[in-house]
């Protein structure tokens, strides 16, 4: 069965070009870039070339990029560094809709005695900038706000956020794991101090991330060890993956237009098609300011995991923000923060595309999804009654 992969916000296919570029670094070029001999030492140059590609994609300078193990490590490092660098400041500002890499790290810091403000969002998933303004005080060590949301794709107004935060002289970090490679991100224009990105969201392998650290800001390493990465991150460089993320960034720059035109058109056709053929369906989040590849939809009166597993039986891979997939009984914290009604949260599905998706993929989903929803509603004690109630055909009690 052909696999239709629509879960690219979770992880992406490693690009063929990336795999090919990485291969020699597993076999012939296996040295340690820190070694004095030529065999290992020659790798140093290649690592720096890859760094330059990452830097170029986001408009940074070479020395401003530190390679990390993943997006989560980048996020943790950024926040920890701020707390270590400003030990007297005991306050963090973030949002309720962050990725667990920021959210749970902040909760852990709260347990250690830091004060954390979790900014709310409105029903379209937008931040209230006045609340941000009011939250940042002299005691704030860092503000950490995601660039784009992983579940809904909603993009936050980073420029305005940066203006507010920087006017108060506070450090600003953004988790740009979902944004980098999909939309233009340029730290020359955007005064953030730190920015996280991750390899496996942009067709590089898992286990490689990067952190942009603006030149001149105070920094304190999270992983302490050897003098790798100029002492900013200990641990022998993951050379093959670094080569991989370098190529992936190069490709991302090249495909950015495709992402914003063709992929976006696919997404829009998918979304419009599903809205047209599935009654009681809706799109979650601000569709105006949104990543071009993501849609988060709710199908009322059916449950997300059931939808996913039925889709899976047709080879269609998607993701659900609902209770069941996350391993907890809690429905998506993002949709809850947006105040989406429970009837809709339980039946939410995230479809995230990439440059590898085609028209045929969209056609198949448009064919299968309505069947799946119909079957599950047939199974559900709510489907018909509730919908009939809505249309006034059934008395409410």
């Amino acid at each position: 069965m052909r696999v239709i992969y629509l879960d690219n916000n979770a992880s992406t296919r490693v690009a063929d070009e990336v795999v090919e570029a990485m291969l020699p670094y597993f076999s012939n070029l296996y040295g340690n870039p820190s070694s004095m001999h030529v065999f290992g030492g020659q790798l140093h140059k290649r690592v720096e070339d890859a760094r330059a590609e990452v830097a170029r994609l986001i408009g940074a300078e070479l020395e401003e990029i530190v390679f990390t193990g993943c997006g989560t490590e980048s996020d943790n490092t950024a926040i920890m560094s701020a707390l270590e660098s400003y030990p007297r400041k005991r306050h963090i500002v973030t949002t309720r809709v962050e990725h667990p890499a920021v959210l749970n790290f902040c909760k852990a810091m709260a347990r250690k005695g830091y004060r954390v403000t979790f900014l709310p969002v409105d029903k379209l998933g937008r931040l209230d900038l006045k609340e941000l303004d009011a939250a940042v005080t002299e005691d704030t060590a860092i503000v950490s706000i995601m660039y784009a949301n992983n579940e809904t794709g909603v993009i936050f107004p980073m420029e305005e956020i940066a203006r507010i935060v920087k006017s108060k002289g506070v450090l600003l970090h953004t988790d740009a794991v979902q944004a980098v490679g999909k939309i233009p991100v340029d730290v020359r224009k955007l005064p953030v101090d730190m920015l996280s990105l991750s390899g496996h969201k942009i067709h590089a392998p898992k286990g490689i991330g990067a952190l942009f650290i603006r030149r001149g800001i105070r920094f304190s390493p999270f992983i302490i060890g050897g003098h790798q990465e100029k002492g900013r991150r200990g641990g022998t460089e993951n050379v093959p993956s670094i080569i991989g993320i370098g190529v992936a960034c190069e490709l991302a720059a090249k495909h950015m237009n495709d992402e914003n035109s063709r992929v976006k058109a696919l997404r829009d056709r998918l979304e419009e098609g599903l809205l047209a053929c599935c009654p009681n369906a809706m799109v979650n989040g601000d569709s105006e300011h949104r990543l071009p590849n993501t849609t988060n939809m709710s199908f009322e009166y059916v449950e997300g995991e059931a939808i996913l597993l039925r889709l899976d039986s047709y080879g269609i891979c998607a993701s659900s923000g609902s209770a069941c997939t996350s391993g907890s009984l809690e429905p998506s914290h993002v949709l809850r923060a947006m105040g989406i009604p429970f009837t809709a949260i339980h039946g939410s599905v995230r479809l995230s595309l990439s440059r590898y998706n085609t028209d045929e993929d969209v056609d198949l989903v448009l064919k299968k999804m309505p069947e799946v929803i119909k079957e599950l509603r047939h199974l559900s004690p709510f489907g018909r009654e509730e919908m009939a109630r809505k249309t006034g055909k059934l008395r409410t009690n």
Partner: protein
Amino acid sequence: MWEYTEKLKELFLNPKNVGEIENPDAVGEVGNIVCGDALKLTLKIDKETGKILDAKFQTFGCASAIASSSALTELIKGKTIDEAIKIKNQDIAEYLGGLPPEKMHCSVMGREALEVAIADYKGIKIEELIGGKVICKCFDVTDEKIKKVIRENRLTTVEQVTNYTKAGGGCGSCIPDIENILKEVWAERIIEEAIRPKERLTNIKKIALIQEILEREIRPRLQADGGDVELIDVDGNRVIVALRGMCTECVMANVTVKNIEKKLKELVTEDLMVVSEGGQG
């Protein structure tokens, strides 16, 4: 993604007995759309023999909820009411070849719908059938149900209770009550079990009992705070334990060891002395 058995997947993709019986003799509705799980069970029952002639279901929920409902209908068809009421949630789980621990509540929901249907058939209130007062308001779970599930499935932690009943999985305000129920049920059981071997506490029994009390009474609480304890050895009446995780660095480590000793003295034998490996306490 969850690890589901083939049987479960099969029943989810091709559920049996879907729908609603017209003019049913019994209806059991549990759960609601807010919880994310709901099941409506309708039964046709032979009034003479009490035999369940037909059973149909409608379920709103995840794959295991749908499969559990289908399994329930398969299990009860052809049985009499009195036979059916003996079906436990584990029977449903077993029918499916097992359920992930986090999904056990789906089987409990099936069992519950059956209870509601039978109460409906008998014309009595569900409280009369199972009794109890509501502990978890978010998910409408009674103390009797929590106790029953703890006993039948030998649960020891709040997390497990949540996995089985959903109680505690919402606002969390009922968690202290669930903790108390757990304590209550285990106090009954552990004291029962502790009294027996006291008649002649062989070394083997003593070690087994210590191990059991550590498992049930002590470790869950330490684990909740990120710590843990391990039994290293029992030398006569000296119980040697090792603290793990957060407990090792904890300034309260001595207090923890003392508390373990207190519990073991209370439930095993007065003569025990607990020391922690490495010396403190």
